[in-house]
Structure formats: C-alpha cells, structure tokens
C-alpha cells in the first residue's frame, strides 16, 4: 500500500521536470537577465535597472528608439489585425450558418485551409502577388504600386496575409457557437419585429459572448507575438515602419553581432507585461459588460 503513495510521481513527475527545465527556469531567468548585462555565453553581470532606464528614458540610445518604434508598430498590428480577425470570421460564420445555405463544410474548409500553410510558405506566395513588377495585384489592376516598400501599402500586405491565414480557427468557433444558439430566441425576436441585423446584435452576439471573449483574448495575445509576416513581407520596412518588437528582440539577442541578451530580455519583459495587462483588462471588461 505504501507504494501507491508515491506512484503519482510516475504520472506527473516527468512533466514536472520538463516544466521546470523548459518553462519555469527560463521564465525566471528571463526576468533576471533583464537586470543584467549578458552576451548569452558568459555569465551575466548585474546592472540593476540600467537596461530599463536606457530603454524607457535615454533618448539618445538606439535601444530607446528601437523599443518605442517596435512597440508602436506592434500595437498598430494588434490594433488593426485583432478587430479584423474577429469581425471577418464572425460575418463569414453567420453567412455559413444561414438556414438555407448549403455546402457549409465546403465553405468552411476553403477558408480554413490557409491556416495550415506555414507563414514562410504563405509569405513567398503573397510577396509574389504584391511584387511590383511580376505581381498579380499590379498586373490585374494596371497599377505600379511598390506594395511592400510604401506606406500604407506595406501594412496592408501584412494585414491581408494575416487575415487570409489566420481567421480559420475563429470562424470554426463562431460557427459552432452560432449553431448552438436556440432557435426560440430568434423566433421570439422575429415576433417582436426584429430584422436580420437587429437579431444578430441582440440575439446572436449576447448568446456567443464566451466564445467571443475567448477568441478576442487569444487572438490579441497571439498578435503581440507577431514576427513572421513583417519579417518576410516587408523586412520591417519602409524605414523600419513595420519593424515589430519581436524583430528587434531577436536581432539584439541572436543577431549577427555581439549578443545583447540582457537588453533584449528587458524589452521582452516589457512586452510581456503589456500582453498580461491587456489580456487581463480585456477579460475583465468583456466579462463584466456581458454579465
């Protein structure tokens, strides 16, 4: 009988080791490293709040410029892409769930498939589409726009590719939630004389509020980690106007020169704090307003 007292370690022990080595230690060390001068190889030297002071207040420092430019661009990406990645799949899901629409699964599959394509493969195709000489876009519309090197087109290419590849999951969630809404609610709304838009706002939306909260929070947290699309579509240009914070962090820590991992860690901690605060705020606001 004594043996069974410890057998739970056989079940949870291996994962705890993995968790400690690959999540707990790196997280703690990431925060610690942000207070140090570290080149990723030798042991870090403690510098207190110096990294944060440089990033946040030293206007002459390139780190200061990189952080605020990267944060600004990341926030632009989050602010534009998240509403698109919620609203567009919601409209598509509503159309698919229209009572009389057939081929529901076919439509769903077509929209979902780009989500299975890796960012780099998708970016190769989209870069060609937006290529100023060879691309479909300019050929088709008879234009000569240099899409990825002129604003606001550079951002547009990033958003188009992001929406194309990123809405499938949310669409499936909305579709399932909408189909679970009780028909009685729609019927009684109809008796009250509600049109389709009125029904959508006062029946559908409140009924799917939990999946909505879930998708908004998850999509936002994911969007803050944006990296691949700007890297491959615009390489951060023109003039660093699409360089997001993850790109600076990666360059500082793993770029070609000497690694500046301490400074990069401080930027990562600041980004992490913004993600946590915004996720918590979203959850709080949406949960309260819909209760």
């Amino acid at each position, binding site marked *: 009988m004594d043996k069974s007292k410890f057998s739970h370690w056989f079940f949870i022990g291996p994962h705890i080791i993995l*968790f400690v080595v690959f999540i707990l230690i790196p*997280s703690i060390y990431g925060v610690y490293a942000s207070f140090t001068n570290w080149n990723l190889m030798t042991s870090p030297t403690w510098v207190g709040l110096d990294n944060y002071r440089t990033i946040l207040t030293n206007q002459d420092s390139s780190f200061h410029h990189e952080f605020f430019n990267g944060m600004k661009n990341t926030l632009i990406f989050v602010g534009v892409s998240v509403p698109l990645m919620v609203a567009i799949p919601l409209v598509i899901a509503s159309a*698919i769930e229209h009572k*009389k629409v057939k081929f529901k699964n076919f439509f769903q599959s077509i*929209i979902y498939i780009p989500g*299975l394509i890796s960012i780099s493969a998708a970016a190769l195709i989209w870069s060609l589409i937006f290529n100023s000489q060879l691309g479909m876009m300019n050929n088709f519309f008879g234009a000569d726009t240099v899409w990825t090197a002129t604003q606001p087109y550079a951002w547009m290419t990033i958003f188009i590719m992001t929406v194309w590849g990123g809405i499938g999951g949310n669409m499936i969630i909305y579709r399932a939630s909408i189909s679970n809404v009780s028909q009685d609610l729609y019927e009684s709304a109809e008796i009250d004389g509600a049109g389709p838009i009125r029904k959508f706002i006062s029946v559908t939306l409140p009924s799917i509020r939990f999946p909505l909260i879930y998708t908004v929070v998850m999509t936002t947290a994911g969007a803050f980690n944006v990296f*691949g699309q700007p890297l491959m579509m615009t390489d951060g240009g023109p003039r660093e106007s699409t360089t997001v914070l993850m790109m600076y962090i990666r360059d500082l820590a793993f770029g070609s020169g000497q690694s500046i991992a301490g400074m990069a860690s401080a930027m990562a901690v600041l980004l992490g704090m913004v993600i946590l605060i915004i996720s918590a705020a979203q959850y709080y606001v949406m949960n309260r307003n819909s209760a």
Partner: protein
Amino acid sequence: MNKKYNVSKYLAYLFLITVCLIWVVPMIFGFTTSFRSQSEVVNEGFRLLPISWIVDNYMSILENTSSAPILRWIGNSLFISITHTLLVVVVISITGYGYSRMRFKGRDVLFFTLLGISFFPNVVNIIPLYRIVDILGWVNTPWAMIVPGLAGMGNIFLVRQFMKGVPKELDESARVDGASDFTIFFRIVLPLIKPVLIVGGLFSFIGSWNDFLWPVIVYTDVQKMPVTAGLLLLQDIYGNYQMVGQLMGSAILAIIPTLLLFLFAQKYFVSAINLNAGIKG
C-alpha cells in the same frame, strides 16, 4: 417570409463565394506559377493558367541539395513534428491522468500553480530557453524543437477537463477489484480519452510544423533546419524573384504534407478547435 429568406440566402451565397474566391486565388496562383517559365512570368503578365506547363522548376528545386535542400527540410520537419506529436500524446495522457485521477495532497493546488505560471508570456523565456537548449547540446538538432514544447500546460488542461466527463465509477470498481493505477490507466482510461488525445496531437503537429520564430533562432545549419526556417532563406537564394518558379514550387512542396493531413483528418480539426474553445461541436 419565404421570399425574405431567399434574398438573404442569395446574399449569403454571393458573399461566401466571393470570399472563397479571394481565398483560393493566391493558392492557385502560387501553384500554377510553379509550372511557368521565368520568361513567361516576366513577359506575359497576370494569367491564372500558364501558357505552357513546365516541370523544370521542380527539377531544379530537387537538384539543389546544398543551399536549399527542400526535401531534406520537409523530412526534418516531418521527423520533428511526428516525434513531437507522439511524445505530446504520451506526456499529456499520463500527466492528465495524474492530475485528475490520482489522489495526493496538494494535487489541484499544484496543477493550478503550474497552469498559472504557464500563462506567463513566452517572449520572456525564449532567450534563456535558447541558452538551456544550447547547454543541452541541442542547437541545430531536432530535439530543440521536439522537447521544450512538451512542457506546455494547455493540452494537459484539456485532457484533465475531458477526464472529468469519464465516469469515476469505472475506475473505482476496477480499483476495488485490486487493479493498480497502471492497469486502470492503460486498460480503462486510455481508450476512453482517445478523442481528446487526437485533438492534442493534431494541434501539436500543426503547431510544430508551422512554428517559425523558434526554428529561425535555433537552426543555423542549412541541412538541419525544418522547412519553415528553410523557406526564409529562399528569397535570397532564388534571387529576389529572379527565379519565381523555384520559389513557388518550394512553397507548394512545403504546403502539401499539412494539406494531406487536413484532407484525411478534417472532422477532427473542427472538433479539435471547438474542444479547445470549450464548445460542444
């Protein structure tokens, strides 16, 4: 009444067909361009179908095994994703069992503590994680992508939730009959939680196949990298769209494995996404 539904039905169709066209045109364009010659791409402008279909692009892609070994990259990705997926299924099933069926002091406190820590944004741990993987000697090896992801809590949470729906009476009565935890786990629980394991496995496969940031950081050896990181190099190798067919062909080859997986496992995908979001499908 019926007439109103018909108008909105046609609007819905019109909308969906337009969206679907926009969605498939890039894929068709990429696919057909991979069969075009460079001179046709440059001179003929936009056409959905090539004037003459050629396979030369694919021949030259497959011949380039030094700077852009695409088949090797796909092989690396397959090895990484399949191994990772199998290990995920093992880890989440035994760990999920531990946190839902084993009785020990502080079990739920421990579980929710780990879950809480795992919400810590992973931008913060990515730099030290590189150092740890480096110390383990895993940089430029498949293990850099296979092992760290096994520590995640999301799928274990799913399995634990799912096990709550499996009647406890089944294992209680087996326990009365003298069955050990191992017997109960393998004989009774494992077959019952297969659906949630498929879900976890599927997402782990797609997640690891499409992972981009981490492989870009952790692989510098061209022969060792997975296909996502490899494709990043192609814009330089196939010189700034001087070899468009090769670029598109490589992208198409990289897409095929997950597309096949989707075609065969489509119904699991839908239930997987909904299970993740806590919706009954």
